[in-house]
């Protein structure tokens, strides 16, 4: 019987225990604890490294690995470019880059892709020049487009193994407790980043606001964090969030919002204690304003609002009309302020929000969701990723996650924009399958998915301009004229994954 460090006799085998690892001294297996008891040096331990380069080297990044980012800093994000520039300088190649989404701030990635630093993208969306280049065949491997819930699913299930997560955080302490609502680059919820922090092999935080320990309340926990790098600035506040979004005065948008509110009011899904999710588009904002009137008139309150939270939802919350907010992404300054201040404005992570394969995600609990569309076809399939010219310029986001989860999914869109019809015979790309889209509301009329006879029956006596979606399609084409089909090349540039991991559609390179 071997003597161990604490002077105890412990058998090598104990029934019921597979393997006994013996005590070898208090510091032997806990290397991250200070060794000099009684040291007065504060802080006792920290994870700060001097530079991004050091953090990257220490994290063991090698060719072919997967790095991840989040998009909470939106158009103002400086972190992704900053990290990728250092990685490129280190000569590391052939990386998979998984970001919860990519914005117009990320055009510099084009260079890293051309130079072979990045060979694969996994994202919810692409915008601007990067999107155009990808649509024109920039990459050999197609981009994988996921939903917000789908990303959480693939990371939690290990289907996507993130080697190193580089997470920009608006505040952190020296030990890695971080949140998104304090600091000069505040962005509100860090919902998408929380998944990466929990599951990535190595987690590097990048912050411009190092605060006293412990940084409570925290969204990212110290027990997940390996290294912290302090930089001058992680984001440009102008690009991170908009100011107060103004109520639209476009009569077309207001008309659509009125129809949509009318639909929701009479759909059977709006009653006392109902729950809702709205987007940040101008029609969606107008709908929340009109719904407020309905709630006041009927004396309803909502139990909660979910998803991307905007100032107009915050206003309803602070008026007591929406009891709780579950916030995976804070869209504007009001939402950012509120998540730091309001007790029942709760931050949730992407898995809690929409992962279809966990034990229950919040999108399943939603009664009403209002969604946008770039295109919707006569089968009610919705496209929010590619434009009418077939070029990528959007994001899958939580569109299909909420469409399937909600009791009623209401798609709001003008019948045509300029001369591009929204209602088409066949969408360029399917993001949300038609079987999960319930009602389309346009400025020229409302169409109920034939699968939702129940909703149609409730609406038919309510003085709404109800049409079949084919009729709306014909109305649109009569005004715009019939477009020539988009010309595509053979090459596949994007793969659209449905939230459950199955492949829903592919995107081809556009022809010039």
């Amino acid at each position: 019987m071997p003597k161990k460090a604490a002077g105890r006799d412990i058998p090598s085998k104990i029934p019921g225990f597979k393997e006994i690892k013996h005590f070898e001294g208090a510091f032997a297996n806990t290397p991250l604890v200070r060794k000099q008891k009684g040291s007065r040096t504060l802080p006792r331990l920290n994870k700060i490294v001097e530079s991004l380069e050091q953090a990257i080297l220490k994290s063991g990044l090698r060719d072919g690995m997967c790095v991840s980012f989040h998009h909470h800093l939106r158009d103002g994000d400086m972190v992704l470019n900053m990290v990728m520039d250092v990685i490129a300088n280190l000569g590391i190649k052939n990386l998979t880059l998984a970001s919860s989404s990519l914005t117009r701030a990320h055009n510099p990635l084009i260079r890293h892709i051309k130079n072979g630093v990045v060979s694969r993208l996994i994202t919810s969306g692409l915008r601007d020049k990067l999107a155009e280049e990808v649509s024109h065949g920039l990459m050999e491997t197609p981009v994988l487009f996921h939903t917000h819930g789908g990303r959480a699913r693939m990371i939690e299930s290990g289907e996507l193994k993130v080697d190193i997560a580089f997470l920009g955080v608006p505040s952190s302490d020296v030990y890695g407790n971080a949140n998104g609502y304090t600091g000069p680059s505040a962005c509100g919820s860090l919902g998408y980043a929380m998944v990466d922090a929990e599951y990535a092999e190595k987690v590097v935080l990048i912050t411009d606001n190092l605060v006293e320990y412990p940084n409570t309340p925290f969204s990212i926990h110290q027990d997940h964090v390996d290294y912290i790098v302090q930089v001058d600035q992680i984001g440009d506040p102008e690009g991170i969030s908009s100011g107060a979004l103004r109520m639209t005065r476009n009569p077309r948008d207001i008309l659509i919002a009125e129809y949509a509110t009318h639909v929701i009011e009479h759909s059977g899904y709006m009653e006392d204690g109902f729950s809702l999710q709205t987007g940040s588009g101008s029609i969606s904002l107008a709908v929340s304003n009109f719904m407020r009137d309905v709630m006041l008139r009927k004396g309803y309150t909502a139990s909660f609002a979910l998803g991307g939270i905007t100032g107009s939802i915050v206003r309803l919350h602070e008026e007591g009309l929406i009891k709780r907010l579950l916030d995976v992404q804070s869209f504007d300054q009001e939402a950012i302020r509120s998540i730091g201040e309001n007790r029942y404005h709760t931050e949730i992570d992407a898995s809690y929000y929409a992962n279809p394969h966990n034990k229950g995600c919040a999108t399943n609990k939603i009664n009403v969701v209002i969604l946008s569309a770039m295109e919707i076809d006569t089968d009610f399939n919705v496209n929010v990723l590619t434009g009418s010219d077939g070029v990528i310029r959007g994001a899958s986001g939580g569109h299909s996650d909420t469409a399937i989860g909600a009791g009623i999914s209401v798609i709001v869109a003008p019948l045509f924009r300029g001369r591009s019809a929204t209602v088409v015979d066949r969408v360029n790309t399917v993001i949300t399958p038609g079987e999960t889209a319930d009602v389309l509301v346009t400025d020229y009329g409302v169409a109920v998915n034939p699968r939702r006879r129940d909703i149609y029956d409730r609406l038919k006596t309510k003085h709404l301009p109800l049409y079949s979606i084919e009729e709306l399609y014909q109305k649109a084409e009569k005004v715009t004229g019939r477009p020539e089909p988009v010309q595509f090349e053979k090459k596949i540039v994007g793969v659209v994954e449905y939230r459950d991991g199955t492949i829903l559609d592919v995107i081809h390179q556009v022809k010039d």
Partner: protein
Amino acid sequence: MGDYGFNTEIIQTDETAERKPVEDFLHRLSLSYDSDVDYTVVMKEGSRIVATGSLAGGVIKCVGVEPEFQGLALTNTIVSHLEMEAYRRNRERLFVFSRPRNRAAFEDLGFQSVGEYPEEIVLLEKPGGGLLEWAMSEGADQERSATEAANVALVMNCNPFTKGHRYLVEQASRRAEELYGSTVDESRGVVHLFVVSEDRSLFPAAHRLRMVREGTADLSNVRVHPGGPYIISSATFPTYFIRNPDDIVRTHAGLDLHIFASRIAPLFGIKRRMVGHEPYCPVTAAYNRAMKDILPTYGIELEEIHRLEQGGRAVSASTVRDLIRQERMDEVKKIVPETTWRYLGSAEARPVIERLKKEKDRRH
């Protein structure tokens, strides 16, 4: 569709009470409201200005949109309005200055870059391709210039053309021949003399151009061109984004020279620019300093020449104007070429000289 609920108003640019709110608005956006503006439009929500833009001749400037109203495409409304106004004034070519980061927004509105002072300012024109058109009409040979050409450039205002100018042209003519060969081949050994076209000098641009043409006709390797809007013009000389007056000159000079070196010089095969030493005018001196910094980075040599002196003073156009004003015509005759003297005596020059005698001297 961005303008629901906004009123569009035209500002009386000569009324201080109307100018002031625009000035304050632009000031808050760190932009200035230039004094040469002759047409201003504002968009208002109620009584509050949310966007503005102006015209100074054919130049769109002082365009600003309140940050919280960005994203509504108000710039499109403003620029459309100004473009139609310019059209009503028979201006077919429009210019705009922009910060380089806003360049794409103006390109989207149909403007094309003329040239850029990197990091500082970019000049765009609409319709695009005007600079190339101008150069071709002045006989630039794009293909040959790119490879074998080697010529000398001079840029002058000549208000009026003096013996000092003549001396400089002669020096350039000789240097071009020495360095780059005879005039047999049109692409080598030529002096391209650009005369400032902007009509802000006492002597009208057309008169100055003719004085220079006549005064250099005997020099077989000298080609005289109007500078058009592309050399030292109100288009290449912005006063838009810059607050500190010292920076204004530096930025103006920089933009003008970047356009010259990156666009014009290659079209005319210019390898050397010659300039008279400037002892008096601080703006010209600053311009000459900027040439020293910028031109060599494009592989263009700069040669500064001591100016012709008479009676211990450089012969300058301002001296000529002073003498005319003082009616000391016999002294004028000594320092202008025969051709200029003949012009000054012509009926055509009489109203110009009358005007000169009435007003105080202007610098250029």
